[in-house]
């Protein structure tokens, strides 16, 4: 009964100054909405990364060079290493594709485009990365042997260089070296942190000739005969490479399986999510300080009213309650609107990422906004409640 009356006083207090209440609410709204939205964006990015890695298939091992221990020299990964990985000693290995990657700028006519990833490999690379061709053809083993200047481009590169045109058969300049486009890959979509379609794949030999030179490989991608054969394949690959590199102690290469890759990438996107969430949390905090500020102003402005209420017998607790309820209502209302804004906002694609709502973040942001009202409202409210009636009444 009594709490209801006090809540009614609080509502009357808020509606008496709608503009101010509205602006304070807006502060909380922005805080809550950004917490929900940014966590959804981070979550969307990480699920996109997971999908793209899952798209690689479950029977892939990635071998990359690693810096040697002090005092030893690291042997680079070579095409010969890749070739040696397929044979009698490694029955679990199906393919091993050598991979080099380069920075490259492609040009067609007046248009130029910095390609995200320029990769040199063999035709098996398309199989292991689950890349399908949308137009034209992939290059062949023969193209690799002959070091023909042919390239298969991703959907983004095609869209950038050949808007409205069929790229197949056209000649592009890659770092001023002409390549013939033989095919366009089917779009895979963005994986959040990088655009999986912003790539071009050329024969390994051509890429080494034209762009990277004959140094070490960037990677060797190994495909095991099946997902179950993966541990065997990893053991066999390790034995062969240790033999070839005469490894003692720490190896100068490292083998990552699909799972490990997933873990590594997920860790990266989790960091990204935490970063986004902390930025959002700061804005929520700023909103909370806004509430304190407004409530302090409100208390100061209404000291006389507080004095009147005390003079007619309002106990400390009811004054405290009235101002706490005012602050909590402000933040709850802002929180509810913020949840609505966050949920609506997460339906749109943001910076190429489709946000994925995390229900617990919605709950958390809302709960925090309610607590913010209590927490940041308690100081002004207790100041109001502690006033002596005669001091409050004399206040002008």
């Amino acid at each position, binding site marked *: *009964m009594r709490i209801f009356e006090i809540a009614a006083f609080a509502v009357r207090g808020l509606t008496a100054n709608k503009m101010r209440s509205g602006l304070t609410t807006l502060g909380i709204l922005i805080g809550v909405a950004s917490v929900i939205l940014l966590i959804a964006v981070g979550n969307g990015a990480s699920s996109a990364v997971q999908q793209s890695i899952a798209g690689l298939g479950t029977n892939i091992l990635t071998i990359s060079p690693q810096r040697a221990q002090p005092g030893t020299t690291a042997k680079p990964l070579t095409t010969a290493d890749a070739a040696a990985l397929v044979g009698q000693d490694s029955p679990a290995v199906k393919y091993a594709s050598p991979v080099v990657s380069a920075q490259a700028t492609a040009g067609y006519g007046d248009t130029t485009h910095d390609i995200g990833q320029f990769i040199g490999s063999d035709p098996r690379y398309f199989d292991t990365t689950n890349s399908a061709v949308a137009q034209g053809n992939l290059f062949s083993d023969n193209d690799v042997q002959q070091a023909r200047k042919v390239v298969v481009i991703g959907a983004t590169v095609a869209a950038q260089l050949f808007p409205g045109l069929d790229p197949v058969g056209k000649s592009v300049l890659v770092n001023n070296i002409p390549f013939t486009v033989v095919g366009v890959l089917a779009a895979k979509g963005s994986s959040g942190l990088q655009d999986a379609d912003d790539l071009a794949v050329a024969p390994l030999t051509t890429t080494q000739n034209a762009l990277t030179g004959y140094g070490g490989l960037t990677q060797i991608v190994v495909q095991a005969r099946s997902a179950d054969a993966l541990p065997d394949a990893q053991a066999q690959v390790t034995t062969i490479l240790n033999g070839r590199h005469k490894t003692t102690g720490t190896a100068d290469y490292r083998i990552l399986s699909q799972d490990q890759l997933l873990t590594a990438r997920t860790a990266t996107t989790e960091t990204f999510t935490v970063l986004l969430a902390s930025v959002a949390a700061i804005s929520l905090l700023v909103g909370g300080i806004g509430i304190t500020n407004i409530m302090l102003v409100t208390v100061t402005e209404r000291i006389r009213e507080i004095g009147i*209420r*005390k003079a007619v017998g309002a106990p400390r607790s009811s004054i405290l309650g009235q101002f706490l309820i005012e602050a909590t209502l402000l933040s709850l209302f802002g929180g509810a609107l913020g949840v609505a804004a966050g949920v609506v906002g997460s339906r749109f694609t943001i910076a190429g990422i489709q946000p994925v709502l995390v229900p617990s973040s919605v709950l958390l942001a809302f709960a925090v906004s309610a607590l913010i009202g209590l927490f940041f409202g308690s100081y002004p409210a207790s100041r109001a409640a502690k006033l002596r*009636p*005669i001091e409050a009444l004399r206040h002008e």
Partner: protein
Amino acid sequence: MSPVIEVRDLRKTYGSGDTAVHALRGLDLTVQKGEYIAIMGASGSGKSTLLNILGCLDVPSGGEYLLDGIDTGEFDEEQLSLLRNRKIGFVFQSFNLVPRTTALANVELPLVYAGVRRAQRRERALAALDLVGLRDRTHHRPNELSGGQQQRVAIARALVTSPAIVLADEPTGNLDTDSSREVLGILDRLNATGRTVVLITHEDEVAAHAMRTVRVVDGRVAGVLV
């Protein structure tokens, strides 16, 4: 019959050291139930301080104050707020109505804090407004009422809880002659129905309504005029 107000050696000091101001210096006063008392004195004599302490809006620095036989000295703020609510009706010179709130809601306010139910609250508030002749102004806000009407609302608020005493601090100080006459008439009628009234004034005509006049000089009672 035990007195409603019994004050012994009441002292009130503001500040400390050299700058200390002694507003009350050992004041004694007894008010019997049903009395109508006017307190007079020059400004700075301590009469307002006295009334604020009687109304439990302020606490004395020394001395005793028994309200309705209860020693208020041992009360904490929570218990004092209860006393203000149940035992005291206070009328201010500057009305002190809650702004942007209807006359009815203003009169209901003490009853809300007393925990009276809605229907009964409304009934009692309307009866109090009826008593001060403002039954037709229940839904007006303070800024829509004249000074005299505002003061009558304030009186209705002071008496709605049926307090043991009604304290009025220069209730006619801000009012014109006609409004003053109405307000004093209401206070006379309240006293006639048995309510104890203590008011501060510096006008002899106002003091003439009271049964006796207490003169305060330099924080002490200088004389009683019956």
